[in-house]
């Protein structure tokens, strides 16, 4: 029987349509992660128009996209491959000790996990929420689908939180970095980095895959896809694969991700108190991750007799390259001749490996 949707719409759906329009607006007018917020926002509109059947099992379009591509973890992993083709690990190879700054920033994940338990979430949900502190959208979605696959309300809130805070890096990080460093420290200039050879760049993704695979097997899907993408780029002989992985395939995966996340953001699953709690915990995770990296940067500052600018530790959260840009901008604000970008990129790309490793550990322990 034919029914008019206008008379069947609920207030929750109206609220979600407003959120969908807001996301499209932020993406297009404010240029906040437009490639993501555009499709996600539009998919939210699709998912919340009543009587369309688009989110219903077994054949609704958004249901199929989510169930087959997001719920299985395939799309976040393909996006990781694309990220690998676009990531330059040279700054990390030139200064490998910055790996540990990438590790220190992951402390935020575990502190947020603890706080999530305190505010009433169970361990698996708390772990998914903690991963927001890794500041890495695909990792957050992948971990959430593996840890709380049957609870779309948690996955939706974690996804929105992770991507929102990634876009808000330039707002969230500076006050924390400023509070944990002195003006004198922020003015420290760092020298030129050494050149990294092609062989090192080729060996790196293979070595990391084997080492991480042997220590944290459950992190291998994420780290392995990141590294195969990187090998496409560094090898110099797989340009076509690198181009496809970083462009066409990445774009397809991003569109599918947007549609799948839209499926999760229906009125019934998204408008809950738990969503607000997760959004708050996400800020906490991200802030403590920034603080953890900066404090470890302070340790490097001490050990190097003041040669390392402690601000680079804040880039250990994996939001690449926004976190590095924040450090560069703050450094130049104190001293116009300071160039910290490449020094911050070391911990920044280490953070990508660190957050994927942390997610793998949590999946291995809890899934």
């Amino acid at each position, binding site marked *: 029987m034919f029914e008019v949707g206008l008379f069947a719409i609920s207030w929750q759906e109206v609220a979600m349509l407003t959120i969908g329009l807001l996301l499209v607006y932020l993406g297009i007018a404010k240029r906040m992660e437009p490639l993501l917020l555009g499709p996600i926002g539009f998919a939210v509109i699709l998912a919340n128009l009543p009587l369309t059947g688009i989110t219903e099992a077994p054949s609704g379009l958004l249901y199929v996209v989510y169930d087959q591509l997001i719920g299985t973890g395939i799309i976040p992993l393909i996006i990781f491959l694309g990220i690998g083709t676009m990531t330059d690990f040279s700054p990390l190879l030139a200064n*490998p000790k910055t*790996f540990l700054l990438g*590790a220190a920033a992951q402390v935020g994940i575990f502190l947020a996990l603890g706080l999530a*338990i305190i505010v009433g979430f169970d361990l698996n949900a708390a772990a998914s929420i903690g991963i927001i502190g890794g500041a890495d959208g695909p990792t957050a979605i992948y971990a959430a689908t593996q840890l709380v696959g049957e609870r779309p309300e948690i996955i939706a809130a974690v996804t929105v939180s992770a991507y929102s805070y990634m876009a808000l890096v330039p707002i969230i990080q500076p006050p924390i970095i400023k509070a944990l460093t002195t003006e004198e420290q922020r003015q420290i200039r760092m020298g030129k980095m050494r050149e990294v*050879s*092609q062989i090192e760049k080729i060996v790196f993704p293979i*070595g*990391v895959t084997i080492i*991480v695979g042997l220590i944290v097997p459950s992190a291998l899907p994420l780290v392995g896809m990141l590294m195969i993408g990187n090998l496409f780029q560094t090898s110099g002989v797989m340009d076509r694969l690198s181009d496809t992985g970083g462009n066409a395939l990445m774009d397809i995966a991003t569109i599918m991700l947007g549609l799948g996340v839209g499926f999760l953001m229906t009125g019934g699953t998204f408008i809950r108190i738990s969503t607000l709690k997760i959004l708050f915990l996400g800020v906490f995770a991200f802030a403590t991750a920034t603080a953890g990296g900066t404090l470890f940067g302070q340790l490097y500052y001490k050990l190097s007799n003041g040669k390392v600018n402690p601000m680079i530790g804040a880039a250990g959260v994996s939001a690449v390259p926004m976190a590095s840009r924040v450090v560069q901008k703050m450094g130049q604000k104190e001293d116009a001749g300071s160039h910290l970008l490449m020094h911050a990129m070391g911990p920044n790309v280490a953070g990508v*490996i660190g957050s994927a490793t942390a997610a793998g550990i949590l999946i291995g322990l809890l899934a």
Partner: protein
Amino acid sequence: MSPLEVIVIGIGVVFLTLTILTASTYLFGKVINEFFIEEEDEKEKIAAIVAAVQSRGGR
């Protein structure tokens, strides 16, 4: 498994893994630069000289 155990194991294994990656990256970087790079540079230099000579019609 208690939340505290998850937190302690999690932080511990993240640091362990990235410490091993730090050490391995140093080690491999040193070995590669010590034993492979010079040879590669020489080959590149010779190839560049040959290309330059050939571009001027030489053999």
